């Protein structure tokens, strides 16, 4: 764990350069360039708005559905693009791994950082919508940074695990699409977790993303502190995933160049 943190600090320049290259490579030879960073979330927002609000008429906790949705959609997009981009962070860069000796974990952190740039742009959309609907943030909005930190730990931990596993079994990258799709439906992205009741609710918050997304809504839309037990559970699971990911990665790192 500590070894990994030391490596990140020492190789911060490389992580930065990798993240910039990943972002550039993603939008090379496109006409719309970085406009895709805005277009994708907007399109998803329109689809969600249509299906969940118009067709299914789900309740949205007393705020306009678009805002209600975007509060969870923005962090969800960060999570899902991070995972789907870094699942191939090691395998797609095998040409570097087999030729140069450098800490391989920088590839994953670079990939997450590159998704973070996209995420910042998504939050600009969020701010624009908040202004448009004239929703004011309260003091509890500062909890956002704590929740985002927890999400970052969880996301990075998952990315490390997923990309490491993908080196051994490329099945992971093929399964990722359907896994992320169903994971989204099991998380309160398009609906409020309030509609989940009974036995299912006991297990519902074992998914860290559920606790995290609900906490965003509490602090940004309703100006109240997050639901601590759920957020704490999410935080603990996130930490466990991150630590075990780093541990496994460090153990496997010397073998990566032979298997990738």
């Amino acid at each position, binding site marked *: 764990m500590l070894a990994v943190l030391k490596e990140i600090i020492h*190789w911060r*320049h*490389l992580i*930065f*350069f*990798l993240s910039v*290259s990943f972002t*550039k*490579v993603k939008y*090379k*030879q496109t006409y719309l360039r970085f406009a895709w960073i805005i277009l994708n979330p907007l399109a998803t927002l329109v689809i969600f708005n249509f299906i969940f609000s118009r067709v299914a008429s789900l309740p949205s906790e007393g705020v306009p559905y678009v805002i209600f949705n975007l509060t969870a959609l923005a962090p969800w997009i960060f999570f899902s693009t991070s995972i789907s981009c870094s699942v191939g962070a090691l395998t797609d860069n095998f*040409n*570097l*791994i*087999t*030729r*140069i*000796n*450098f800490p391989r974990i920088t590839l994953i952190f670079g990939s997450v950082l590159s998704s973070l740039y996209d995420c910042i742009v998504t939050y600009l959309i969020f701010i624009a919508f908040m202004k448009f609907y004239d929703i004011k943030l309260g003091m509890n909005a500062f909890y956002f940074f704590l929740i985002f930190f927890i999400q970052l730990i969880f996301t990075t931990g998952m990315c490390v695990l997923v990309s490491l596993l993908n080196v*051994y079994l490329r099945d992971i990258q093929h399964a990722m699409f359907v896994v992320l799709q169903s994971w989204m439906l099991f998380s309160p992205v398009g609906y409020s977790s309030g509609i989940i009741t009974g036995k299912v609710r006991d297990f519902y918050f074992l998914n860290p993303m559920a606790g995290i997304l609900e906490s965003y809504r509490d602090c940004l839309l309703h100006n109240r502190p997050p639901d601590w037990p759920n957020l704490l559970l999410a935080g603990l699971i996130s930490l466990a995933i991150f630590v075990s990911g780093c541990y496994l990665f460090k153990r496997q790192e*010397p*073998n990566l*160049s*032979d*298997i990738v």
Partner: protein
Amino acid sequence: MENTVIQFNGVSKRYHLREMIFSKKDCFWALKDIGFGAQRGEIIGLVGRNGAGKTTLMKLASSITAPTKGAVYVRGRVVSLLSIEGATNLLLTCRENIYLLCAIFGLKWSEIRGCFGDICRFAGLDGFLDMPLKRFSSGMISRLSFSIAVHMPSDIILMDEVLAITDAEFQHRCFAKLAEYKRSNKTMLVSSHNLTDLQRICSRVIWLDKGSLVKDGMPEQVLKEYSKALVGD
């Protein structure tokens, strides 16, 4: 032993023949029980037929891969030029590749800006800095990647048949660079099939065959026996 910078003790390396690595069967030994030491300032040539284990030995020396048995000790900063042109990203431009590869070799932002001009001058690719690499010829990519690698700070340099496809003028400049390394007392491992070049620059030659060390000694002697064996086959 102050001056020993690379030390191989009974090193063996096993590779899997199959795609999936879960079965313990279907393995082959790329290196078998290799032992040698390299002193600071030595230029060691590696000869052997394709698949003899030259590249594996270099990968172990640069810690890209770990030995299956035995131990490898390396002291100092290693820069390996193992088919380095393959490490470039074809989608990025020449300039972006220089920045990225320098960072992968461990340079900081300020250091990269310091050596950027030198790299461009050495590569001689002035008009093409903002062209994506996919439009480069393989010779130009070789020039670029070789230029980056020789400008990295290093104590030990590993070269694996790097000069094969560049033109005579560039090769001449590279040999000048090698002579500069020799003067600054850097250690080099050079593998090549060009025996005349090896004879010219090496102070010692190691001959590998099917993963085993056949001979380790003065260039004239080892190269003579090696070329005799090649003809004999």
